[in-house]
């Protein structure tokens, strides 16, 4: 079997069979759902009812808003958990064992990144299916094929960005202890940095700017736009002013000093961030293994 395929396969098995690792990689998802059930959903519905009269579509729209946040968080936490295998292997000398084989260190390193992409992608897809079922169960409708294709595209972007971003962070630590701290920090911060725990409009302006600059939050924006557009149009029918206020307050699209970010702008920003974090990671990696 091809060496790379074999290595990825091994990392994958190690991940899948560690039930706790899988569980903790989606723990923040469970937290989001709980927070949502307890208060985020209600406060949001109340806020919207101040703007427009309540409609059937309202609840579905708010559900979609949450799902968008979930999907971007899953991409981050699962890819990071998968990279944890690299740190564990480093500390327990498994890496040294791999390095006694005639293979380049860079190739072995790359296998962990590929595995992280794979795990992030598969778990995000499972997340997408679960979200679709949730939306339908709560009275929403099935996604069109076009929407599914669009969502899968955004998942691919989100997973790639998360993976290289996490790779960069992972290269900064070298012990399992430090990594577990990193994991906790990322797991906690990501919900805020993507405007999922607290809507964008509810935080001070400089924090809003930080969130807008944080590249991963742009994946949330793309997910929101893709998931919510139909419902948005229905809920805010004939009230473009209210629609705009809501979309900015809840981060469906970003407005920076009166300049509106288009979806394309977000995609470009994400791709640029992927390139930047890849380059920084390569540099860090080179520095570490001189």
């Amino acid at each position, binding site marked *: 079997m091809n060496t790379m395929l*074999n290595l990825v396969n091994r990392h994958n098995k*190690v991940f899948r069979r560690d039930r706790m690792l899988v569980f903790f990689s989606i723990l923040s998802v469970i937290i989001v759902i709980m927070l949502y059930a307890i208060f985020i959903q209600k406060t949001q519905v109340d806020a919207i009812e101040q703007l427009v009269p309540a409609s059937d579509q309202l609840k579905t729209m708010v559900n979609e808003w949450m799902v968008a946040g979930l999907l971007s968080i899953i991409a981050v936490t699962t890819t990071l958990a998968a990279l944890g295998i690299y740190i564990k292997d480093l500390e327990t000398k498994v890496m040294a064992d791999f390095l*006694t*084989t005639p293979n380049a260190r860079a190739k072995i390193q790359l296998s962990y990144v590929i595995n992280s992409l794979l795990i992030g992608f598969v778990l995000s897809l499972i997340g997408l299916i679960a979200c679709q079922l949730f939306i339908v169960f709560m009275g929403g409708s099935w996604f069109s094929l076009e929407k599914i294709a669009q969502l899968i595209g955004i998942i691919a972007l989100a997973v790639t960005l998360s993976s290289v971003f996490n790779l960069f962070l992972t290269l900064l630590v070298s012990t399992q202890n430090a990594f577990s701290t990193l994991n906790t920090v990322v797991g906690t911060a990501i919900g805020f940095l993507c405007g999922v725990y607290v809507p964008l409009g509810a935080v001070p302006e400089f924090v809003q700017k930080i969130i807008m600059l944080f590249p991963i939050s742009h994946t949330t924006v793309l997910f929101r736009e893709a998931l919510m557009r139909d419902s948005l149009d229905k809920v805010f029918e004939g009230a473009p002013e209210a629609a705009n206020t809501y979309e900015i307050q809840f981060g469906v699209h970003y407005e920076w000093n009166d300049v509106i970010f288009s979806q394309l702008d977000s995609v470009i920003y994400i791709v640029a961030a992927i390139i930047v974090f890849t380059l920084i990671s390569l540099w860090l990696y080179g520095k570490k293994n001189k």
Partner: protein
Amino acid sequence: MELVIDVKNLSKKYGSHEAVKGISFEVKKGALFAFLGTNGAGKSTSIEMLCTLLEKTSGDVKINGVSLGSRTNNYLIRKAIGVVFQQSILDTRLTVEENILHRGNIYKLTKKELQENWEFVNRYLHLKDIAKKKYGTLSGGQKRRADIARAIIHKPTILFLDEPTTGLDPQTRVFVWDAIKKLQEETNMTIFLTTHYMEEAAVADEIVVMKEGKIVSKGTPHTLKEQYTYDELFVFFNNGVDGTSLLTQHDLNFAEKNGEYRVRVQSTIHALDILKELQNFISSFEVKKGSMDDVFIRINEEVPLT
């Protein structure tokens, strides 16, 4: 005889600390070579340099005639060596078979080669009963079996083992040791190991003793014993016999404690002559050969043999 490892002036500096200070030695093909030394002597550092895991600071190393250093050469060396680490490096949630086949696959073997090698390691390490078990559920001895199997799945010609028996119970140590010996004898694999256990080193073909980064002694167990130990004769005299004056008369070097006289002899054979002289005066005796433990203690205490 063919040399498989040829080390000249090898040294390693960690920052300003010189862990290995210009050591030289040779290992012959098919030999069981033991690296002995107290904690921090530089054994692991040396072995890691030979295994291409750690870059040397200076010196020359040739493994199977290939100079260690360049990337292509190191790849050639890596194909020829297997390494058993002190700690477990297999995955606890994978079965023994999965573990070994996954690692074997990284050597770019064909399916057929891998299958043949799997049968080969099975034969030497009797994996049949544990192949389908999760590595994490195995006992210490079974784990070690799997570890060694992993190290030889690509049929290396040289097997490095860093303290393969440290922390194992005596029974498991014997098992591991037997497996290593069998591999050496039946496949002519060269074995290079480090250990703290003297009795293990005693069955090696060649021993190198390291201390503070330097080689302080090398030779076969036999020559080391000759160099660093002496045999002793212990005697108890009959009641009423003045042992001290008797032994002094015969010009013997001895010490007495609780009526037991400890006489240093050149070799066990010489004890025979002394016993003949004393046979009418002694009630019991014992002859003890110098052990590897004595060698080790002497080398490390730097007690000169007088």
